[in-house]
């Protein structure tokens, strides 16, 4: 493709549209921030203001359609759910707009690149860490994300696979806390009242793990219990800091893929080949590497 005229006139720029499923999740806010940051390296690419679908697939479909209408040069979509976005992505593809799918898949092959983490893998890593933390076995409680969300399903699946390694490890309770810290706290309070022995809390994201931590700390049991989260955001209120502070035993960085996305967009726009499937690994955050990782991913000073 050739660059179209940009709003500030003069130099030609590529216009990129980006639809994010929900800006208000810290992880996604971080992804947005990073993407903006990494795209700044390419002066001939202009990122339109990020469209926030606010968790609504219908909104996101029309956002994608809007971008098609505006004839953007490339499209980045971070889908709310796989299926609903499929048709819209197909439409973009039919309109010959290259599409990069971030984080969650769609049910069509008609996209240019997928960049995302592997939630089953991350779940498995978390499970392995749990096995390591509980060598003599023990009782685990699991705080789930919204039950129908694919990451929830995958993070649960990988985790259960991994802890099967030690039959003395049992998940004694699990409930949906909808990814929300505030919902995790009372659930954990109830578990503490019901189960005299809880050895480890597995939260599908850091906020839920931290919500449980608050409850355990209040009950004076934070020391006996290990907490594992996922996401590892480099924000003051995020998981990396929580590991540093010893609140979480470990968290796993759910890669935003922002840097990869920026590079991929650039390559696509300049006609260079890209990998269609870019599955990203994860990094375990421990007390030892937390400070470094925080520095590495902290963007607060850069925007």
């Amino acid at each position, binding site marked *: 493709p050739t660059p179209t005229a940009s709003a500030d006139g003069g130099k030609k720029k590529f216009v990129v549209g980006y639809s994010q499923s929900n*800006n208000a999740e810290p992880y996604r806010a971080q992804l947005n921030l990073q993407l903006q940051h990494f795209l700044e390296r390419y002066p001939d690419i202009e990122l*339109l*203001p*990020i*469209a*926030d679908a*606010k968790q609504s*697939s*219908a*909104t996101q*479909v*029309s*956002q994608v*359609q*809007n971008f098609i*209408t*505006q004839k953007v040069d490339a499209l980045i979509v971070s889908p709310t*759910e*796989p*299926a*609903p976005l*499929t*048709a*819209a992505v*197909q*439409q973009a593809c*039919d309109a010959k707009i290259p599409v990069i799918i971030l984080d969650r898949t769609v*049910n069509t092959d008609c996209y240019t690149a997928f960049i995302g983490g592997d939630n089953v893998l991350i779940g498995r890593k978390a499970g392995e860490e749990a096995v390591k933390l509980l060598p003599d076995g023990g009782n685990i409680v699991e705080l789930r994300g*919204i*039950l*129908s969300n694919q990451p929830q*399903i995958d993070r649960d699946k990988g985790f259960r696979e991994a802890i099967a390694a030690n039959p003395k490890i049992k998940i004694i309770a699990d409930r949906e806390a909808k990814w929300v810290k505030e919902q995790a706290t009372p659930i954990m309070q109830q578990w503490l009242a019901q189960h005299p022995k809880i050895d480890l809390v597995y939260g599908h994201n850091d906020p839920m793990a931290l919500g449980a931590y608050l409850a355990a700390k209040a009950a004076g049991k934070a020391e006996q219990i290990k907490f594992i989260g996922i996401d590892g955001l480099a924000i003051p209120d995020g998981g990396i800091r929580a590991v540093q502070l010893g609140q979480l035993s470990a968290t796993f960085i759910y890669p935003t893929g922002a840097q990869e996305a920026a590079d991929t967009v650039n390559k696509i726009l300049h006609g260079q080949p890209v990998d269609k499937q870019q599955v990203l690994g994860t990094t375990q955050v421990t007390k030892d590497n937390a400070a470094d990782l925080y520095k590495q991913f902290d963007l607060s000073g850069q925007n």
Partner: protein
Amino acid sequence: MTLHADNRMRRTLSALGAAQAYIGLVLVLAVGIATKGEMFLSETNLTNAIGAFASRGILAVGVTLVILTGGIDLSVGSLLGIASMTAAMMLSEHALEPWQIVPICMAVGAFFGFLNGAGTAWLRIQSFVVTLAMLSVVRGLDRQVSDNVSVGTQITGPDGQLTPQAEAFQLFGTPGHNLFGRIYYPVLAFIVVCVVFHLILTKTRFGRHVYAVGGNPTAARLSGVNVTAVTIAVFTLSGMLAGFAGPIDAAYSASADPQAGQSFELDAIAAAVIGGASLAGGKGTIVGTFVGALILTLLDNVLGLNAVSDNWQLVIKGLIVVVAVVLQRPDLFTFFRGGSRS
């Protein structure tokens, strides 16, 4: 001033008043045209914009009926959800034809709607409570039957191609699939629903009774209107329409998510209320609701096309809704002449 002239003026004023009901919409359209011109006005864009809202628009029609009787229906989002799940399951597990799926979904919606009506009319619980409870109950059932897993509608046969049923089902609203290659079904369905219920409300006995029950239930009862039956009927119809919107939503998303329709009720009620329906009952029209729905969806569209940042979108959307409602007040002129307050 002669009586004649007075009459003429009054008629002009009232025509103006009627046109004024659309000022909010005109405003949004004007901004859209001014900022994005052809792109905004293109058939594709408008179809996309209205299509995205169509299922909520259909809910809004049902909710309008309920609001007209002085009730409220918070369960429509959940009912849409379970209907969309029903549709997806009928398609994937029983390979039913689309024309078989729609009546089943409508029956499912109508059933729960009937329960809403029964709770309101027979148990005489405030409809807010009944339908809030129904919102929760139906969502729970929806999640239970689906096992918390979303069910896709793009069912492929052994040959790797979509089954004929799944192929046909796409016409219910999967973006890019049009009837006769041109007509986008959700938009058509929304418009047809509006027309049908507009006619029901304005031309039939039932319509008059709906207004009467909302405007003055005692008077309605004393005039021989079966208030209980009307109440149950509007909730059932609202549920039925939510059931009708279910397959559209499923086709639009090419899947039924156990969370589908969540908080749609707020959009639906907002469309009705922006269109002039009074939550006190007895006041409102389908035309108004249609206009309200258009305002909401086109506003989203215009802000999106203009790439307004989403945080500011929330702010601007809220402000414009208020402005639109103020401009649409029938008594705008007298109001700003500083008329007395009652």
